[in-house]
């Protein structure tokens, strides 16, 4: 199942530089696209590839591109979403840091397909080192005539700039990102109109994730049909999975979609099993927003079928017994992890990151945080557990952007699958005081 597309040649010394990247086949797709394909042909290849957005929602990329308004005559924009702030997700940082030209190459092809002459990479402000690496790579590309006016003599112009955020998870949501890029607070916009019609500066805009764009060069080079052969069913291609938590080998892995979850967790090629020889308790497979699943349900579906790393398999069973592939942020919890403490932690995160525009999200996330804080600290009551379920259900679906849903799903799922832990907290306040959260190796050094 070893298959590298976006991370191909990642281990080559100096691959972050243009000359080395080109020696390894870099920017060949550009020649092919600009010289022998029309923009619409590029869109068609991406559609045939079945590539789905890697930012979390999994929306088909070719289809998104075909929605862009080409009739209005307004300038069009391409934005790369490199805000990467979903807890558990750190794949885009890895990609940009090690092989920045893969992204730039993909963006030039994508901009050509969309007829965009200006593109931005919106990077979260904390990634200062990444911003430096990207700027160096962009400079190299300009100097080689791969960016700027009349790229490779094709008559196509593209300006590409890096734009830095300043610490706000909500700016990963595409319309909040656009507002932020316009120099405003990151308040999501009501949709419709969708960015493809009215996006940046009210002009047609496509926002794509880093990893999504990094796939485009390969698709142009090898054709959509070849891409569609990789993976399983409608989950075509590969996916970057960032694995973290209580495992032996945290890190970023490129897997062919369809890899069994069991193999991903226990094989030495990936997570390498649970740290310290402990038992697996639960997994959040797609970034903090997606439902947590206990061991039995992450390894097998409720029907007893092996769960696979794919959009369809991970969501099988809906939210009753399934979860989502999401952004590929794979967080593993061992037998000693406290699910209540973690749910409180995630709730605090969403409360902190709510932009505050809609009352269900602003007030609801605050309520969930304080009720969970109460339970976690041994002051909760049994009825608080149902109160949480009720608050979560009232936020979900009633907000401007999906952050409201993202805040309620983890709470609802944790109670659905680990109600006994919540009840234990309520019933044994004296015992939970001694639970230590998180294991730091070498904890004893100061003694």
């Amino acid at each position, binding site marked *: 199942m070893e298959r590298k597309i976006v991370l191909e040649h990642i281990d080559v010394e100096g691959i972050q530089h243009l000359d080395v990247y080109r020696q390894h086949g870099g920017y060949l797709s550009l020649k092919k696209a600009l010289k022998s394909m029309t923009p619409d042909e590029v869109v068609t290849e991406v559609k045939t590839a079945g590539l789905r957005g890697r930012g979390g929602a999994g929306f088909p990329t070719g289809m998104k591109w075909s929605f862009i308004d080409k009739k209005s005559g307004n300038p069009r924009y391409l934005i790369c979403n490199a805000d990467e702030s979903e807890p558990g997700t750190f794949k885009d940082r890895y990609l940009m840091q090690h092989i920045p030209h893969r992204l730039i190459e993909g963006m030039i092809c994508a901009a050509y397909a969309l007829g965009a002459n200006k593109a931005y990479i919106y990077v979260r402000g904390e990634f200062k080192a990444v911003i430096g690496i990207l700027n160096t790579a962009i400079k190299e590309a300009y100097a080689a005539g791969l960016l700027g006016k009349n790229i490779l003599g094709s008559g196509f112009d593209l300006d590409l700039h890096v734009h830095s955020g300043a610490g706000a*998870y909500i700016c990963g949501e595409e319309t909040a990102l656009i507002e932020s890029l316009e120099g405003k607070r990151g308040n999501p916009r009501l949709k419709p109109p969708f960015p493809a019609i009215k996006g940046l500066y009210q002009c047609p805009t496509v926002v794509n994730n880093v990893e999504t764009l990094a796939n485009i060069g390969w698709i142009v080079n090898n054709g959509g049909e070849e891409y569609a052969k990789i993976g399983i069913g409608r989950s075509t291609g590969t996916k970057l999975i960032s694995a973290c938590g209580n495992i032996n080998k945290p890190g970023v892995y490129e897997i062919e979609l369809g890899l069994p979850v069991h193999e991903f967790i226990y094989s030495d090629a990936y997570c390498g099993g649970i740290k310290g020889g402990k038992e697996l308790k639960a997994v959040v497979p797609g970034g903090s927003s997606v439902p947590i699943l206990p061991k039995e349900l992450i390894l097998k579906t409720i029907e007893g079928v092996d769960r696979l790393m794919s959009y369809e398999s991970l969501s099988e069973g809906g939210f009753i017994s399934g979860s989502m592939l999401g952004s590929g942020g794979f967080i593993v919890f061992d037998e000693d992890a406290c699910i209540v403490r973690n749910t409180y932690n995630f709730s605090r995160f969403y409360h902190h990151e709510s932009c505050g525009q809609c009352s269900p999200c602003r007030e609801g996330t605050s309520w969930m945080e304080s009720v969970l804080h109460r339970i976690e600290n041994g002051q909760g009551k049994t009825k608080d557990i149902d109160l949480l379920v009720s608050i979560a259900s009232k936020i979900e679906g009633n907000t401007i952007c999906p952050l409201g849903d993202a805040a309620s799903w983890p709470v609802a799922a944790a109670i659905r699958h680990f109600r006994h832990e919540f009840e234990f907290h309520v019933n044994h306040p004296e015992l939970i005081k001694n639970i230590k959260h998180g294991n730091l190796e070498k904890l004893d050094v100061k003694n």
Partner: protein
Amino acid sequence: MSEKHFKHKLYVKENKAVAFSPTTLEKINTIISHYPEGQQKSALIPILHIAQEEMGGSLNVDIMEYVASLLSITPIEVFEVATFYSQFYLEPVGKYVIEVCHTGPCAICGGEDIMAYLEEKLQIKVGETTSDGLFSLKAVECLGACGSAPVMQVNTEFYEFLDLTKIDTILAELRSKKELKKPEEQTWKERLS
């Protein structure tokens, strides 16, 4: 409404003249040129980063009004943005701002121990600055480096796979007033190590 309702810290004006150096102004004009004609407001966040870095580590009203004038926008447009994003500090901070990630993946790998240890070593609570003005301690949400948990950031530098011994070394190094290397000055190997 009485005067005191407006006495939020943010609105304290020192009336000090502030200005960027000609080199910085040049850098800023380049940034503005990255956005279409008439959309210079887009440069606001990048410019606030530069202002904060060059003008003492945090933003005050004088600085924000100056930035507004550079971009021909109103001061309130700058205040709105500066108060929204967590990387902008509206109160003075120490020379080194230590930001410890306290989100789930870091927490289950010992992030809470790191925070408690720092509080003990620096003798301050989260949100405070040491009396010598050297360190500020902050808790931040996921820094996008969960695979190397627990993680913290000091000014712009990431420290990963932390344990208590590493904290001792880092603090000693910072105390010895060794300047942090700016990310753009590091080799990419140094950055990844």
